[in-house]
């Protein structure tokens, strides 16, 4: 199994993660939460395998992209916070997250949305840097 390529490990990591997340979402409650944690563990374990199978060129690309893309993604998402928190933008999103989580209090969906917002900003920053790094090395 360790001879699988980095791409194969990434596919296993992502597919398993999303399947488990969908199951967790469907089941809900404490069982769903346990499945969601399992999904996180699955993603971490198989992402580690993918990382180990990558060559140093790709590892350099990912280190660079997490460092600078992640950082600038975080800073840009924070800079855009005033726009993102306009009532017309944030209210429907909080309502949607509250419905999806079946949350009874207003704090939980706001916290989840805030965490997702930062993660999304870093992911976008990472992706932009990763593509830029590969284009610059062609």
């Amino acid at each position, binding site marked *: 199994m360790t001879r699988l390529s980095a791409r194969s490990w990434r596919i296993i990591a992502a597919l398993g993660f999303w399947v488990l997340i969908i199951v967790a979402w469907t089941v809900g409650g404490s069982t769903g939460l346990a499945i969601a944690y399992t999904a996180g563990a699955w993603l971490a374990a198989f992402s580690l395998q993918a990382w180990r199978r990558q*060559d*140093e*060129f*790709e590892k*350099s690309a990912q280190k660079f992209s997490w460092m600078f893309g992640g950082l600038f993604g975080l800073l840009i998402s924070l800079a855009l916070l005033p726009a993102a928190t306009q009532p017309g933008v944030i209210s429907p999103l909080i309502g949607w997250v509250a419905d999806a989580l079946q949350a009874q209090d207003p704090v939980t969906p706001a916290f989840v949305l805030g965490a997702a917002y930062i993660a999304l900003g870093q992911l976008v920053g990472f992706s932009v840097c990763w593509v830029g790094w*590969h284009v*610059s*090395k*062609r």
Partner: protein
Amino acid sequence: MKNRIRVLRAERGWTQADLAKLLDVSRNSVNAIENGKYDPSLPLAFSIAGIFKMRIEDIFQKD
């Protein structure tokens, strides 16, 4: 850093993919190293030298 990998590879009739397979790296890695866009680590430089049966300094030169 300059290098002679493209010439050495061509002398042996290898494609970038052939060399990548021998080094257990991606073809993109070989392409970036050949074009001087990426400097390999010391272990990879030793592997390249070993495959060509040459010394590192005979393959890589400072700009």
